[in-house]
């Protein structure tokens, strides 16, 4: 590999460079401006926009960059990666807005320089994750993401909740990534490579002891499962989501999860699939029964998420479980092992981005005002927050998956994939889960509108900008629910995982 090659390859990671540069700029500006942190969010937004534009420009590119040998390289730039980068960028933009209104984050005004730079650390980690084609790069980028998020989860230092969340997160994450690294080392020992594509051709060519491979695979899944909070690797999720500041919770639940899914899909697709047939179904190499494993995990995940959510009284915690349940639904898209399943996941993520962020945003605004996230404190609140209430209803309905919201389209896409793969029993389980989920989502609406309270609750003052912002999240759900051609087209267009 020569230096020209390296420089021309740098050209392909312009978005990552943009993010890194922004990070540096934020640090520098923070140092220069001293106590005035007002510029930081705007710099962040500009950086994100530039990164976003660069990602968009990259659509259509399909190239391996940073070759380490003749047939292996560190990164694979493809539409699939770009798609998830877009999701990351969009959710990051929303998170910056979140942070602007969050009372928790506002209380740490003096450390906003760190805050935004850590956010960009996370973004950078995610960008590399979704494009990584090498296990070591996957590990490193995941660690970058994790280290930044450990700090952010405990960002409000004097909050006990924050600190506890952050400690649990770091221990849990450290162990998970350690186990994953051990798994990677076993793979390395077996194949002599850490490149996904090389590993693929090697396990196709020769046979390895399957128990060892399975062990390594499961160890690696521990790491991925930690990121996407799939059962039984989800245990950190409720505690950390509840403890962390709301913007960070929201960010973890969407962006971090998206990156985790992207890398999981790429891992399985690139390493363990030998061919894709004309109907878009993947054929696994006969070493590990990923299909069964993932079906098992996904059913466990959604069932656990939904049933545990029934019992929650803290809205944030409930949303944590709900996000576990949604991870379960999305895992089904992986489990069908078909292009259609991937499309379903991609559609699901766009919709999920809006509805989940929206729900968290409303929770945050209400928490800012009433200082509580308890579901019981929402009683009779519907008339105090007319617009937010309606918006929250839309988000929740979309989370349930009822028409005419986009959540319905996401679910239908998933069901279509399941039916096409003849997984009827799984479908029925999923649907029963959906019905169960109605119960806890509707409970919030019930508290908002149906419950009679003795004293009239005062109107909450919600900033005009925040109202507009809520609409930004809510309206797309209705629009995409009725006219979903664009998201399907977009997902379909992005369905190009570099490889076989």
């Amino acid at each position, binding site marked *: 590999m020569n230096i020209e090659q390296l420089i021309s390859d740098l050209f392909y990671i312009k978005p990552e460079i943009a993010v890194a540069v922004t990070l540096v700029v934020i640090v520098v500006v923070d140092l220069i401006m001293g106590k005035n942190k007002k510029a930081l969010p705007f710099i962040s937004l500009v950086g994100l926009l530039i990164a976003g534009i660069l990602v968009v420009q990259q659509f259509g590119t399909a190239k391996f960059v940073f070759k380490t040998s003749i047939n292996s390289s560190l990164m694979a730039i493809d539409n699939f990666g770009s798609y998830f980068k877009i999701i990351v960028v969009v959710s990051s933009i929303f998170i910056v807005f979140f942070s602007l209104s969050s009372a928790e984050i506002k209380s740490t005004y003096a450390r906003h320089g760190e805050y935004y730079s850590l956010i960009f650390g996370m973004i950078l980690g995610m960008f590399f994750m979704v494009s990584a084609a090498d296990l070591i790069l996957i590990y490193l980028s995941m660690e970058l993401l994790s280290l930044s998020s450990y700090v952010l989860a405990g960002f409000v*230092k004097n909050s006990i909740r924050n600190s*506890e969340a952050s*400690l649990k997160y770091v*221990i849990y994450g*450290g162990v998970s990534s*350690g186990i994953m690294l051990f798994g990677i*080392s076993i793979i*390395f020992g077996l194949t002599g490579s850490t490149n996904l594509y090389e590993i693929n051709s090697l396990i196709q060519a020769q046979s390895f002891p399957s128990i060892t491979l399975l062990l390594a695979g499961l160890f690696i899944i521990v790491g991925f499962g930690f990121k996407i909070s799939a059962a039984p690797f989800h245990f950190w999720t409720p*505690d950390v989501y509840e403890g962390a500041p709301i913007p960070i919770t929201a960010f973890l639940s969407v962006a971090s999860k998206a990156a985790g899914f992207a890398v999981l899909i790429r891992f399985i697709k690139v390493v363990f699939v030998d061919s894709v047939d004309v109907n878009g179904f993947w054929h696994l190499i006969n070493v590990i029964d990923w299909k069964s494993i993932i079906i098992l995990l996904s059913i466990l995940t959604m069932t656990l998420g939904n049933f545990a959510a029934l019992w929650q009284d803290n809205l944030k915690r409930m949303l944590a479980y709900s996000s576990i349940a949604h991870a379960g639904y999305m895992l089904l898209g992986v489990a069908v092992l078909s292009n259609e399943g991937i499309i379903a996941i991609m559609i699901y993520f766009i919709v999920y981005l809006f509805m989940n962020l929206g729900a968290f945003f409303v929770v945050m605004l209400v928490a800012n005002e009433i200082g509580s996230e308890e579901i019981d404190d929402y009683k009779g609140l519907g008339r105090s927050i007319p617009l937010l209430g309606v918006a929250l209803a839309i988000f929740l309905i979309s989370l349930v998956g009822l028409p005419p919201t986009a959540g319905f389209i996401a679910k239908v896409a998933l069901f279509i994939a399941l039916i096409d793969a003849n997984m009827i029993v799984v479908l029925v389980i999923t649907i029963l889960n959906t019905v169960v989920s109605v119960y806890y989502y509707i409970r919030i609406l019930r508290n908002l509108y149906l419950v009679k309270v003795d004293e009239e609750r005062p109107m909450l003052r919600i900033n005009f900008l925040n109202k507009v912002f809520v609409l930004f999240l809510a309206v797309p759900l209705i629009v995409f629910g009725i006219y979903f051609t664009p998201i399907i087209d977009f997902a379909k267009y992005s369905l190009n995982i570099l490889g076989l």
Partner: protein
Amino acid sequence: MLHVGLTHFLVISIALFSLGLYAVVTRKNAVMVLMGIELILNSANINFIAFSKFGNFGLQGQLIALFVIVLAAAEAAVALAIVLNIYKTLANINVDEIDSLRD
């Protein structure tokens, strides 16, 4: 004269890995837990290097180990900072007593 082969390295690494896990799940002190994590990472490092040497994979394994060592250091720094913070707010770093967030 005992010939030191791949197996010996692997036994050491597995032992370290297990000890690391054991430390993580049993130690009360958060610092001890973090040390357990270090053990796990280092067991992986041993693997990488051993495989690299005995598998004729070039220097790739050693390179990876270097990356991991750096990362482990970073992780330790972050984690210790968090523990410190916990100590400041709670005056206690017993991991099993920090369980106010639960169902």
